[in-house]
């Protein structure tokens, strides 16, 4: 027998070498674009391989024990051609105790498709049998339904002629397929004509990207396959446009405490890393994102989207429309419109919605975020918000009774919902106006509101924080100067960070909250690049010199001339004006900016960068590329 020591040593060295190369622990990647197309494609493939190797090696559980394989590890092993027998046995074991709901469905779809020709017939049959016996809950959010129906569609197509009694739905394959197909078409049509419901998601991007990629990869019906591919482009074009150095900026329909303060720490960053290579991946490559990676080679990032993410020559402003979460009650509209603004510069970004209720729990309404060379662990954001917690909001969005829901959500993944010190969520009593890098947020909180104050977030990573006698608070974040003007008195409290949905207490990671216990209230924030001023003092002087008048009675009102010379007037409950002209949101397009443009109702998105243009047409189900004449 040959000594095995050299082999072990070789494997160990290989493993260590791989670890050293891991993007998880390595330095932040370059944000410069890769201009060579072949190199870009090779880099994309290399990143995917890194994730697949991570998953196939059992790194998710820090073990290669077959008994602990989960479905994504199995998927990665199947892609790598490894351990088919182990995988088959483990699949049978897992399917003997099936879960229920979309987060169980799409992993099993992944296994069913990747396992074709690889897993044993018994293993594949065990998956099919679980889809007969295990009642699947459809869930109650848009991402739940996307995952549910994409999964049901693909399984019904995979087993096309099975009778009703062989599915948990009690419907035949053809009936399941028709129902799922109808929803998928409805969702794509709605999202491409009226805007996305769960827009700019920090974490839920995976819940859309994964089922869309599965459809693009495995759907037999060309119309559904193409919808999957087009919607992936749509989703990633939005991601590219709203990121700065790979980190998602501006408002989010649904997010969590982590990415609100540490903007990089979101699954969206892992997608940026994989697709664009311009920011580090998050821990475990984004968790659910692993399911994307195992099939990611079926998707090629269009050149124009890559260029938008990585290669910008000028500041730009992007206006979009979106939808709120569905409101069952207490609303004149089922899904009111959301108007988003994102202004991105080299050193920072400013983004907002108009305020008001969006998602009842998880919305992030506005902020100024700055660029960091390495964004990890950096709390690179400044904003204020009203910590709204209400039974009406719960009942509006959920089919629940008034009293138990608030407590329930705090125990089920949203621990800060009912905290007065929270920094996550939207409020019906907040109205926001943005012009370029100026934000005016006004608050008119009724007497009796559960938390009658506003919270302003001041990061641990701000430097030179200066409370000026002028009433402005000045600071620097990265290469951005920031001016924050509270319109009412305030005190400071420590920021307690809830690390994850199941956190019980807030950790002291540094940072403060400006808390202002006044019902009529407001915040003005003005940002600028460090390079625009000879000194921090010069910035302060420039801000103090700006004409500003405000009053809080009878409603908060601000007249302010911005650093960019715009005369803005904002009064709570009234339409803001800029240089005397009222804003007309009704004229906003679905997307409008230098990179993304779309008319409301068109189902057509034009993506441009320089001379590159790609038109996604959900009517004709085509993607058309051209090089425009300069």
């Amino acid at each position, binding site marked *: 027998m040959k000594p095995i020591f050299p082999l072990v040593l070789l494997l160990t060295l290989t493993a260590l070498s791989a670890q050293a190369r891991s993007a998880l622990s390595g330095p932040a990647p370059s944000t410069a674009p890769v201009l060579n197309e072949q190199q870009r494609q090779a880099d994309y493939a290399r990143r995917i391989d890194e994730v697949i190797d991570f998953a196939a090696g059992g790194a998710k559980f820090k073990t290669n024990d077959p008994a602990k394989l989960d479905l994504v590890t199995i998927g990665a092993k199947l892609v790598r051609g490894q351990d088919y027998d182990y995988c088959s046995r483990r699949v049978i074991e897992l399917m003997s*105790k*099936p*879960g*229920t*709901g*979309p*987060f*169980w469905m799409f992993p099993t779809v992944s296994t069913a498709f990747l396992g074709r020709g690889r897993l044993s017939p018994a293993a594949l049959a065990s998956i099919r049998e679980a889809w007969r016996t295990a*009642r*699947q*809950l*459809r*869930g*109650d959010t848009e991402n*739940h*339904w996307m995952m549910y*129906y994409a999964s049901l569609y693909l399984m019904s197509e995979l087993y096309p002629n099975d009778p*009703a*009694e062989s599915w948990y*739905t*009690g*419907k035949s394959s053809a009936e399941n397929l028709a*129902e*799922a197909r*109808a*929803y998928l078409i*409805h969702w794509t049509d709605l999202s491409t004509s009226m805007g996305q419901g769960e827009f700019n998601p920090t974490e839920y991007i995976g819940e859309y990207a994964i089922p869309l990629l599965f459809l693009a990869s495995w759907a037999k019906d060309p119309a559904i396959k193409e919808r999957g591919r087009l919607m992936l482009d749509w989703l990633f074009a939005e991601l590219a446009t709203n990121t700065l150095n790979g980190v998602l900026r501006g408002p989010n329909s649904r997010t969590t405490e982590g990415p609100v303060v540490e903007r990089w720490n979101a699954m969206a960053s892992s997608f940026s890393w994989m697709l664009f290579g311009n920011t580090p991946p998050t821990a475990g490559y984004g968790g659910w994102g692993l399911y994307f990676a195992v099939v990611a080679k079926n998707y090629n990032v269009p050149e124009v989207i890559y260029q938008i993410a990585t290669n910008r020559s000028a500041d730009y402003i992007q206006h979009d429309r979106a939808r709120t979460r569905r409101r*069952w*009650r*207490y*609303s*004149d*509209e*089922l899904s009111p419109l959301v108007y988003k603004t994102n202004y991105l510069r080299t050193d920072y970004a400013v983004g907002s919605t108009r305020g008001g209720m969006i998602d009842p729990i998880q919305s992030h309404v506005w902020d100024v975020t700055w660029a960091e060379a390495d964004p990890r662990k950096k709390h690179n954001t400044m904003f204020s918000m009203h910590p709204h917690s209400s039974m009406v909001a719960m*009942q509006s969005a959920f*089919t629940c*009774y*008034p*009293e*138990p829901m608030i407590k329930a959500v705090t125990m*089920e*993944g949203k621990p800060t919902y009912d905290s007065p010190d929270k920094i996550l969520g939207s409020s019906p009593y907040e109205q926001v106006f943005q012009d370029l890098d100026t934000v005016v947020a006004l608050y008119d909180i009724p007497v009796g509101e559960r938390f009658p104050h506003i919270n302003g977030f001041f990061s641990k990573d701000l430097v030179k924080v200066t409370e000026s006698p002028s009433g402005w608070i000045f600071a620097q974040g990265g290469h951005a100067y920031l001016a924050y003007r509270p319109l009412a008195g305030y005190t400071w409290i420590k920021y307690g960070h809830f690390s994850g949905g199941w956190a019980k207490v807030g950790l002291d990671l540094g940072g403060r909250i400006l808390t202002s216990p006044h019902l009529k209230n407001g915040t003005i924030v003005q940002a600028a690049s460090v390079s625009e001023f000879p000194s921090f003092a010069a910035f302060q002087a420039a801000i103090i010199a700006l004409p500003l008048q405000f009053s809080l009675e009878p409603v908060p009102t601000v007249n302010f001339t911005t650093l960019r010379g715009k005369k803005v007037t904002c009064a709570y409950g009234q339409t803001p004006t800029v240089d005397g002209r009222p804003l007309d949101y009704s004229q906003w397009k679905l997307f409008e900016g230098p990179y993304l443009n779309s008319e409301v109702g068109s189902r057509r998105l034009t993506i441009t960068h320089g001379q590159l243009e790609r038109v996604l047409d959900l009517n004709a189900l085509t993607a058309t590329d051209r090089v425009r004449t300069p």
Partner: protein
Amino acid sequence: MVIKKITGPLLGLLLSTLGGAPPTPKPAYDFFICANINRNYTIGAEILTMNGVFQRDAAGAWQHLGYNDMGVTAVAFDPRDRRVWYTSALNGLWRTLDGGKSWRMCNGWEMTEARDVAVDPNAPDYVYLALPDGVAVSADRAQTLERRENGLPDRGKYTQAIKVDRTRAGRVFAGCETGIYLTEDAAAHWRQVLPTKEMVTDIQQSPHDPQVWLAVTQNAGAWRSTDGGVTWINFPNVPKARALYNVTFDVTQPLRYAIGSWIYGVLTTEDGGVTWQDRNAGLPAPHRVWRVGIDPAGWLYASVYGETLYVSKDFGRTWRADALAGTGVNNFMILPRSTN
């Protein structure tokens, strides 16, 4: 639509209520609950506890029926054939034709999160479904469903309760966000019979007198109708600042009602609503009463959220813990015993 004769136990009830009938044997009933015994479930995980529809057996034990689903809000049976039944649930409407062995999800993606379901006893092919965005109706035992909302408001039609008048086919009440709505033509047209500013949370028809109905609301207290639901009178002694979750009759005593409420706990009356008593002594505090029910023997049940099912043999004066720890009962249902 054919209006069928009322026969069997229901006829006995009606006649005894009218007072002129010959003595009839005391009707027998079956007692059901829709229970969620969710422990640490998050969507996608394996369901580790048995949930759904349970029936009280002769020994007093709860026997599970049908499928395991934590989101069952209500159950309704076809009076012609007890093997045919329906559940409203998170996914919508489910139907079994074989006593729970096999099931069909009857709705497509257009309907979700059904709140209540009812079968018309006089036209049992008709199934009514309460939805967060209105009402759906089937005329073919839920093989197909259609929206029937003419007369309901465009907004404000969140429907929590749907109840069919057992005396007349096609006469149905919907408890909505903006009040109680009545149809007398199988949902072809609806009209508002009680306006409210917030949810109507439950509607019930008396087992003793079909003209008597009770309703409870989120912020308008409790109501009674004695003319078949056409007009409604508020109970002045029932609090109305906070939500009342459900109301129930007692099949053994015509003047006994009970109300369940998160804030107020268990409220009972034994004089037809003239006086009401707080019956929370012996229940866990704070109240958190999710539902109350009364079984065929007149025992009062209270489902206390996150705790267990409690039972009282003396109509709330004393309580003891029953089975099903961790249960949240979404619905109590009492039905004349069927031999079908």
